[in-house]
């Protein structure tokens, strides 16, 4: 799901950077000093989780847990995801530096959508967690497919969207389980935002 450099037109990448950095500034404004340590720690955890690869449908995918990050951090998830992606790009070539803005927008918006779903009333917590985990992964995948379509890469990405359906389902199950666990072990984590 990480776009490499040279794939999208440079104007899109620059616009992506401008939008993503604005979002980082906006959603990271008035961060308290005590909050920064927590954000950094969760960014590090997200980075570690993203290194866990598992085989799926003949390819290798890794977890992102954007939905879970959105649930826990709300709007603050955006700067955290941006930082995680920066490190992934620098150290493991997961996504390019020029495309970092577009990648951060895709995945950060997924986390924000997940957070909104998590706060939706009327559904059991486990279901909301599962839906948030699913949307946190699938929404960025759909955005990426739309970007490829707009950039003229053809219809092959419908296949990618189908693969990510499976990844998003796995993330949904994991997020639902994680939310249930956290509710028992550390409920403050779910109520901080």
């Amino acid at each position, binding site marked *: 799901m990480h776009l490499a450099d040279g794939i999208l037109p440079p104007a899109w990448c620059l616009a992506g950077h401008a939008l993503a950095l604005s979002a980082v500034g906006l959603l990271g404004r008035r961060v308290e000093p005590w909050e920064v*340590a927590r954000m950094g720690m969760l960014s590090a955890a997200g980075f570690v989780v993203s290194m866990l690869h598992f085989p799926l449908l003949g390819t290798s995918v890794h977890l992102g847990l954007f939905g879970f990050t959105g649930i826990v951090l709300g709007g603050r998830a955006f700067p955290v995801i941006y930082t995680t992606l920066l490190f992934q790009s620098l150290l493991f070539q997961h996504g390019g*530096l020029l495309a970092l803005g577009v990648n951060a927008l895709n995945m950060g918006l997924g986390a924000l959508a997940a957070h909104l779903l998590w706060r939706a009333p009327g559904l059991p917590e486990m279901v909301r967690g599962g839906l948030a985990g699913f949307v946190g992964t699938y929404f960025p995948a759909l955005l990426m497919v739309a970007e490829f379509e707009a950039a003229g890469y053809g219809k092959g990405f419908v296949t990618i969207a189908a693969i990510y359906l499976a990844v998003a389902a796995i993330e949904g199950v994991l997020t639902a389980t994680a939310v249930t666990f956290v509710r028992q072990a*550390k409920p403050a984590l779910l109520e901080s935002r």
Partner: protein
Amino acid sequence: MNGPLTLVEGCRWTRVESRAKIIGLLGAALAVAAAQGLSVVGMQLALAGAWVATGGLPLRWALQRCALVTPFAAMMAVFLAFERAPDYGPALVVLGKAYGSVLLLGMLVASTPVPELVAGLERLRAPGVLVVTASFTYRYAQLLEQEWGRMDRARLSRSGRGAGPTAWGSRLAVLFVRSWERGERVAAAMMSRGFAGRFPQCAARGWGAMDYGFAAGGLVMAIPLGWEVWRGAGRGW
């Protein structure tokens, strides 16, 4: 996190100031991304290769970096080849651009320790929240990775088999809970030491000829692009 694919010992560009490297290499990568014609991308790829070689980075390093991006870039190229057949130029252009960018930005990490890179971003006026979060991420990612390894060994010693989705979810939750608690302890300790939301930075050293030369690398990479525009070869791909 400075493994074999990151900081490379003996790289000549280590001496260049981090801001100069960020400006020069990002500018160069932008010039590569903006290229349209196969011949121009080929020229830029050759220039990037020369830049890598001048820095004293080994061929093995370059191949490893390119291998990392190959699955994604090749997939894009295949999709494009089907879409634009029988014109396979666009597919090759995408591959060339991906490899060119990877070599250029790989040089940034190969020649700059992560803390210096973060300091460079701060001096270039990156948002403060980003800089501090990045500093914490760098500091604690290794610790959390080790923690995950310990959790994995503990799971194996108790169950001796692979984990199902429920166990995976719980383990991930434990990692986040521990990170959160550690974050609280770290925050409390830092606040007690007067942390006000940002780390103090050493004053940046002035730029020398090497720094200016490196920062101008983006312009050099834009020369083939200018040639492409001048020749009017930039239509389509």
